[in-house]
């Protein structure tokens, strides 16, 4: 069985897709959700092999979602959309397939066999992620897309990934690794990413370590390993 996650903001569309996939008897729907943030969480947790992904969704589109997924756990992607306004043919190279709503089960069967073949040959998904410009964050029950320029630093702890701006601290589902890869933020510590534009000063400490003070007055540790890189970036 191929493990699939359905991401669509319309409940009936999700249910219909689940039924159609169940009918194939090849695919096991491990979960379904209605927005990109939940999807990110579920991908991280459930590690599906394939995503049936709607493109037009609130706050984070299907494309944006894919940019936030860790490359190691990146599933195969089947876009499902009502109307092909993005010329999905252009993505054919990058994604496994695309389906148009309402989904025809015969057409779906083709997608599934393509999927079986790809997974059987153990070919990895080829979706190339692009740079992330806005990071979806949670603050209480509100979702905000935080622009990169606002970010001072991002830290990870047991509780998850926290993004700090001048005025707020947010929680995000995007992993530190993804953020390091797809944003210009710099790693300064195993648990920290820093926005180089927000650095006010670097205080050198004993043992080759350092501490960064941000414009917002926060202090972030710099480990020995990353200090060199940071110095180099700052032409010190």
């Amino acid at each position, binding site marked *: 069985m191929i493990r699939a996650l359905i991401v669509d903001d*319309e*409940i*009936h*569309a999700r249910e219909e897709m689940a039924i159609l996939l169940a009918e194939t008897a090849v695919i096991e729907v491990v979960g379904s959700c209605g927005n990109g943030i939940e999807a990110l969480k579920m991908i991280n947790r459930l590690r599906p092999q394939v995503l049936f992904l709607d493109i037009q969704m*609130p*706050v984070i589109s299907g494309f944006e979602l894919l940019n936030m997924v860790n490359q190691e756990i990146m599933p195969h992607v089947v876009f499902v959309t*009502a*109307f092909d306004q993005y010329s999905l043919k252009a993505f054919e190279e990058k994604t496994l397939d695309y389906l148009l*709503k*309402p989904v025809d089960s015969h057409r779906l069967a083709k997608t599934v066999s393509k999927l079986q073949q790809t997974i059987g040959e153990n070919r990895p998904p080829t979706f190339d992620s692009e740079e992330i410009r806005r990071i979806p964050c949670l603050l209480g029950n509100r979702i905000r897309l935080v622009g990169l320029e606002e970010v001072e630093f991002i830290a990870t702890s047991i509780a998850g990934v926290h993004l700090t701006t001048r005025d707020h601290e947010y929680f995000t589902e995007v992993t530190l690794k993804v953020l390091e890869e797809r944003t210009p933020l710099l790693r300064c510590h195993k648990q920290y990413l820093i926005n180089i534009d927000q650095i006010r000063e670097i205080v050198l400490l004993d043992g080759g370590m350092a501490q960064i003070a941000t414009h917002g007055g926060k202090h972030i540790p710099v480990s020995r390993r990353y200090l060199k890189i940071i110095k180099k970036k700052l032409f010190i």
Partner: protein
Amino acid sequence: MDLLTFSLHNIFALLQQMSVFLVIAYLFTKSPFFRSFHVHTLHPRTLLLLYFIFSTFSILGTYFGLPINDAIANTRAIGAVLAGIIGGPLLGGAVGLTAGLHRFSLGGFTAVSCGVSTTVEGLIGGLVHIYLVRHYQQHRLLSPMVAFLTTLVAEITQMLIILTLSQPFEQAVALVRIIALPMILANSTGAAVFVSIIRDQRKMYDELSVFFSTKALKMAEKTVAILGRGFNMQTAGEVASVILQETGVGAVGITDREKVLAFVGDGSDHHQVGQGISSTQTMKAIRENRIVYADGGEKKWRCNLSAACPLGSVLCVPLRLDNELIGTINLFEPKNKLFLVTNKTLGEGITKLLSDQILYARYIEQKTLVTSAELKIAQAQISPHFLFNALNTIIAITRKDADRARDLLLHLSNFFRKNLKHTGNLATLEEELNHVHSYLVIEKARFEDRLQLEMAVDDDLLALKLPVFSLQPIVENAIKHGISNMLGQGVIRLTAVRQPGSLRIMVEDNAGNFIERGKKGLGMSIVEKRIKNLCGENHGLEISCNPGERTVVAITLPEGGCGEK
């Protein structure tokens, strides 16, 4: 006694030559120059012309004068004084000097004194001009009384100058005794009569132009509404009747380039609408693209259709639209009636007016065409997203709830039927809400819990009219750009309120995304444009947005809705 008879004789003689003068003055008032001449606005060119005219008058006055005792009793003063009064000291002085130099060149013992005095008289007229202008009495520049008194003073001054300057003094005294009375009286009277001729003519022209303007305006007022409906047989007929009634001519015919569009008045029994053009003059007017006039005197109009036709004269005026001839307007008079010049002028004028009105109507028509074309675009804009998502939703629901699926399909077909129908420009609020309702029921099915609908519209507002297809694009925007981008619960609220002076139909969403989008989309712009076109410039869309909280788009309409135009 002897002196008196001589004076009387002189007065009559002078008055006699004055008459010649006045004839010339009268002819002057008939000249095209006079028609465009106003004492209030004298341009340098006009002044120059006036200089030549009055100098000629003045010099002629010398020539027509009576030689008396080696001097000339004359009416030279009139030209100089009037030039001064009408044109100011510069013109008066120039005319006086010219006529004075001329008089000087003729010689005699008063040559110097007469030359000087004529210049002085012109200047006296000029002083009066300055006085009147300074005291805001321009209207008295052409007053016979002013002319009389000024000339009187000027002539007395002239006599004093003759007495002062002419040698020998005894001869001057003798001369003045003879010529003073006749010259003073004749010149003053002459100037007064001259001015009154100018004034009366002026008045007549003014009255005539007022008469023309009123008639033309009255016609224009009646025809503008008619031609607003386009230029065709129906409207041409109505326009012809208006022209017939206002001008009082025998008959009026309107043609396009080939056939008669309308004919009213005498001879309408055989001049029938729809038949080809038969009038030689009309064909000529079309062929040569110019006004053709057969006055019924030398050039007669002959009916080519019936020998018994009572009509005998015609004025054919081409009707042009952007320089392209589209037809003619023909005014006829019966054989037994003269074609009035006033009607000729009026006919020519009104045709220009009608051309403008037709042009305007075309413009409006095209504007409406553009809007209805835009309406089609707006309707065609129904997003394929909506259609396929709706179908997808209904397909899913079919599995679970066949009745609901059926109901949704009925709404979908109602929605599309309304979309495809575009007869007329206006719809009632009820029809619009019905359309929107079907749309919202489907969207509600798509979003289920994520969309909540609230509608509060008073029943007594339902019959009010608004441009068809105004509401749906706004509601669609609220969903597409508002609710569908929300993670939380979306609310669409539809309300209508009547306020003094306006009716507001409001579509509110709790997404508050409008600021992010920045500007109205194509659909909204078309809605706004159509409201402005159909309901007036003061109405349209009002948008307020509280980012992240809510967007309210209000359609503002006249209090009683929009009226059919």
